[in-house]
């Protein structure tokens, strides 16, 4: 694992940066959510590379900075696949690689409806030091993060997660409701959680001039997420919940910046999370790979 955190992750970072800066990009109309998902999938053949950070306060322990990289590829107009690499630094403790995640999202209906369901299937291989809080499930609470990294990383978790994403767009607003069920493949009960989101561009009409700071390039909103207990004790008891305003800025150069301060809603939650992220969409990635292997010119 020392090998992985000291050499592989910086190597991946360098290679990804090279790709992000050198490949042709396309303007991305990205939503501002960091936890919640809407029903819009990656465009077919495009690859989005993203980096996200979460700074979190820790009552009774050391604050932390968790981070993850995302590689999101549009396989078809109805299927998006995504790979995550996660890590974290706990201040006055250590920096550790915490795991990988592979998720797939499938759009069910052929056409747009008032409510659009998307099915989400994920496999996660992580250790107990994971702090990215990309989803909150079961009885995840702040005190779970008090365990020192050296101890927590010895706990290996293989987990399958299913989500039902229900998303609507109405008069420029997006509303999304995600419910999740996660199962640790060791002998643990199903755990449940939720995420809700609402967002809207600051302007609905596009400008007739090219601009970076036009209001239509900014999308603001709010998301709320938390745990719902497990199969044996379903409900809000002993769970954590967060409310987080979100803002995305889609730049004409193809970059998207996101920022989101999050606030814990009960005393089981981290009091404050500050998240930010940067992403870039690379156009025609699938065709490039195809050409590399002698595919159609």
């Amino acid at each position, binding site marked *: 694992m020392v090998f992985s955190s000291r050499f592989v992750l910086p190597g*991946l970072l360098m290679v990804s940066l090279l790709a992000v800066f050198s490949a042709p990009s396309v*303007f991305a109309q990205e939503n501002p959510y960091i936890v919640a998902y809407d029903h819009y999938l990656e*465009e077919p053949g495009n690859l989005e590379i993203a980096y996200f950070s979460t700074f979190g306060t820790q009552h009774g322990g050391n604050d932390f900075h968790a981070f993850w990289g995302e590689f999101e590829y549009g396989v078809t*107009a109805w299927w998006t696949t995504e790979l995550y690499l996660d890590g974290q630094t706990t201040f006055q403790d250590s920096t550790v690689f915490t795991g990988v995640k592979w998720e797939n999202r499938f759009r069910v209906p052929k056409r*747009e409806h008032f409510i659009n369901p998307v099915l989400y299937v994920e496999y996660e*291989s992580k250790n107990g030091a994971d702090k990215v809080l990309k989803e909150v499930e079961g009885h995840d609470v702040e005190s779970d993060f008090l365990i020192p990294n050296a101890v927590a990383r010895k706990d290996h978790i293989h987990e399958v997660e299913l989500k039902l994403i229900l998303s609507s767009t109405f008069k420029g607003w997006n509303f999304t409701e995600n419910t999740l069920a996660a199962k640790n493949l060791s002998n643990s009960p199903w755990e449940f959680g939720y995420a809700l989101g609402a967002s809207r561009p600051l302007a609905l*009409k596009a400008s007739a001039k090219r601009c970076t700071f036009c209001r*239509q390039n900014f999308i603001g909103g709010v998301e709320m997420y938390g745990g719902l207990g497990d199969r044996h004790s379903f409900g809000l008891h002993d769970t954590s919940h967060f409310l987080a305003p979100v803002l995305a800025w889609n730049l004409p150069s193809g970059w998207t910046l996101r920022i989101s301060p999050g606030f814990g809603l009960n005393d089981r939650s981290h009091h404050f999370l500050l998240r930010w992220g940067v992403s870039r969409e690379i156009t025609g990635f699938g065709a490039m*790979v195809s050409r590399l292997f002698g595919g159609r010119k």
Partner: protein
Amino acid sequence: MKAIVAALAACTSLLAISIALGQSGNPGKSPAVAAPQYNPAIYAELQKAPEKARKRTNPLQNDPDAVAAGAILFEQHCAECHGEAGQGGKKGPSLRVAEVQIATPGAIFWVLTNGVVRKGMPVWSKLPEPQRWQLVRYIQSLGEPGPAAESPAPKP
């Protein structure tokens, strides 16, 4: 676990190298591709628009900025598949053909909103309605004579 991480590193590196190689012959632009052969069946989706959707009029039909704004939106979201001037590309058909140009604004708006998901065109309802109407206005301008198929404003 080391093996998994190493495999991931190898895969990611390979993909990144492929990006670099893929664009090496065409710096800064998507590769030029021949427009696909004309196939009227591709445009059948326009006929599937419900009557109510087909009859919708473009609220921005007379907006003097609609074509220019639509041109920028087209370049940002559509040109990758349909070609920079809507002439068609490897993934998307030409939008200059009669089937599109005689279609009602409502029918084009309906296809934009719903996509043709099973045939590769994503839904574009993530663009707010006014932006979709601006796109419709631009697409229909591609069939107009003279300077109607305006190029987007020059890049700074």
